[in-house]
């Protein structure tokens, strides 16, 4: 953490970008989502349209298909999308950062432009039935054959939208004997490879976002490994560190929009709100704006040269706090979703309950803060 002034960006420069983006949006309205079109398909069309305007991967170097600007520019675009009620920027920031840091030059040049343009849709194969937050318990195994390729066997769980994806960032153990942080490797797995089975899993909110992935004697080439053997652990840590920042996930705009909806509803029903609900809405607004400030500070710190690390556990806990309190409050503002047909708020409420579980549980985040940020001693597990 720095205790000297931080550069949160040049407001005029960012304002110019905002202005250009608004002008572009005016000519490229949000596509219609036909009834029955799955959300990821709709979002993918939106992704391609944003890319065509140059609004994806603003902070990715130009030679890899980005615009070579800063993360603050990407933030501005994300902000503006939220303000317009449009879906957020595609959630690829964390994948792009992992490839930028660990991929070979050949992989970066081949994979990144297609990722940014939406030609390749990616999912993430980290968790397993026996290893959720605890990656050390991973049992998917990539056995290296004398010819140089790998044969992979195992099962992945919670692989978001795998049924709509072409590529998977796969973690597998390449050494059964070594400790977890030295024995896991990362691969690019094409999901149409023989031996791969994808099975959607219905979630509490009714959606089929999550999938199971079964891998039976799947062959992966050496060139499909990202980084060296054993780089999987640091790669996963980089990926989740970026994934835990609300900016990189594009959640901020979604929250901002709902808060403004709650404020307007409260304003219209002035005087008829249950006790304390108005201040609860104010509290949600504070949570959200603290999260914006926090994400900007992280971005500014990163631009000042700090790489994403264990402090992202703080980001994740703050995001969880904001999200869960927001949807609990939203259900109190729109109680009809509880005793009626349901709706978007109820669905998102269920999703918010997962916030303290996915990407490493809240308890795991607290352990990381205690041990790695505060340096507290290792003790009994009880």
């Amino acid at each position, binding site marked *: *953490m720095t*205790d*000297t*002034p*931080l550069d*949160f960006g040049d*407001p005029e420069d960012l304002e110019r970008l905002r202005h250009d983006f608004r002008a572009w949006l005016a000519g490229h309205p949000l596509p219609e989502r036909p009834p029955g079109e799955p959300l990821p398909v709709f979002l993918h069309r939106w992704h391609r349209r944003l890319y065509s305007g140059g609004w994806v991967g603003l902070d990715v170097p130009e030679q890899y298909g980005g615009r070579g600007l800063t993360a603050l520019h990407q933030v501005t675009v994300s902000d503006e999308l939220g303000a317009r009620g449009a879906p957020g920027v595609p959630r690829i920031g964390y994948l792009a950062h992992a490839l930028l840091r660990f991929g070979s030059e050949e992989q970066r040049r081949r994979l990144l432009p297609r990722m940014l343009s939406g030609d390749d849709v990616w999912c993430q194969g980290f968790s397993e039935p026996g290893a959720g937050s605890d990656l050390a318990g991973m049992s998917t195994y990539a056995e290296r054959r004398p010819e140089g390729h790998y044969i992979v066997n195992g099962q992945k769980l919670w692989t978001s939208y795998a049924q709509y994806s072409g590529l998977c960032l796969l973690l597998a153990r390449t050494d059964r004997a070594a400790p977890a942080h030295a024995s896991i490797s990362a691969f690019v797995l094409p999901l149409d490879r023989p031996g791969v089975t994808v099975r959607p899993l219905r979630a509490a909110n009714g959606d089929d976002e999550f999938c199971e992935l079964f891998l039976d004697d799947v062959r992966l080439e050496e060139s499909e490994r990202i980084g060296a053997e054993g780089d999987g652990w640091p790669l996963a840590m980089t990926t989740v560190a970026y994934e835990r920042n609300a900016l990189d996930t594009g959640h901020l705009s979604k929250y901002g929009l709902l808060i*403004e909806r709650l*404020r*307007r509803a*409260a*304003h219209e029903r002035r005087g008829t709100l249950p006790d304390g609900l*108005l*201040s609860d*809405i*104010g*509290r949600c*607004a*504070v949570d959200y*704006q*603290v999260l*914006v*400030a*926090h994400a*900007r*500070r*992280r971005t500014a710190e990163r631009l000042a040269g700090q790489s994403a690390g264990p*402090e992202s556990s*703080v980001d994740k*806990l*703050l995001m969880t*706090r904001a999200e869960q309190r927001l949807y609990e409050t939203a259900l109190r503002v729109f109680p009809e979703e509880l005793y009626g047909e349901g709706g978007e708020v109820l669905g998102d409420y269920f999703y918010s309950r997962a916030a303290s579980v996915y990407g490493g549980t809240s*308890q795991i*985040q*607290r*352990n990381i*803060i*205690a*041990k790695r*940020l*505060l*340096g*507290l*001693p*290792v*003790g*009994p*597990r*009880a």
Partner: protein
Amino acid sequence: MERDEFTLVRDMLRAFATRFRSGSADDVKAQTRTDAQRALDELGLSGLRRTSPPAATVQECALLAEEHGRQPLTTSLLGTALLAPELLRLLDLGERAEPVHGDRPTVALAGDLRFPDRDAVGLVAWDCDGADTALFVHAEGRVTEHELGAPAPTADLLRGVRRASAEGRPVGRLTPGAHQCWQAYALVVVASELVGAARSFVGQSVDYARERHQYGQPIGSFQAVQHQLADATVLVEACTSATRYAAWCLDSETPGRALTAARVAKAEVNSAAVEAVYAGMQVFGGIAQTWEHVAHLYLRRVLVGAAVLATTADLLTVLAAPEATR
């Protein structure tokens, strides 16, 4: 300020704070207060925001306020060195009518320590160690100068507060934009000092958790204690981000946006700083409940600080209003 220059000023303040910190409530005596204030005055920080353009950014001043909050100090950095000079600067940009008589003004607040509403009563000179007069900003932006009276009681044992005369001499008026800037600046500076206090106290409790043994091991190795300190850390980081961003907004954004960011920061700090100090006190255990220990000096500071200028209830109501109606 250049980065090097700022680091120099911050280190100077840090050295001052280490030397003049109160080790316990018993150290808070009239003579030690006077000595400490004289030493702080010698650092010459009251010039940081007095000129236009100011010598230091709001972001820099906020970081100095954080630094001041880290140690239990009786000195008035906020009132006399940061707040009153900024008020005079904003007044010069607005409609300055009459000169101020005092050499070292501090700021006056309504008797309940909040920003005044239209019928504020019982004014107090807040954070007034070393001050000779107090400036009061009325709800509609008029500024008056008030005489200092007898000490006023406050639960914050470190903070100097005195009664201020009901009648004041008019010295000018803030333009609406300057009034917004003033409120935002005051919120940010006060919040920053509380952030410094909370961060420092949580840091001390982390150190204690490493040293204190129970059942044959450091208490910091128990997961229940670790999680409590992790939660306190999250709160400290949240209020740090909110205040630093709000400070930057004052340097770079419109007064309206800066005021919203400052309100958010104060609302977060009001609850987070107190919660974080509670967590630290729990880790310290019995010793933190004694008069001799510094814990209650921190608790008193954040507890009263959470009521200064704007309470959580004041802020949440404002922040619950739709953007369009604000």
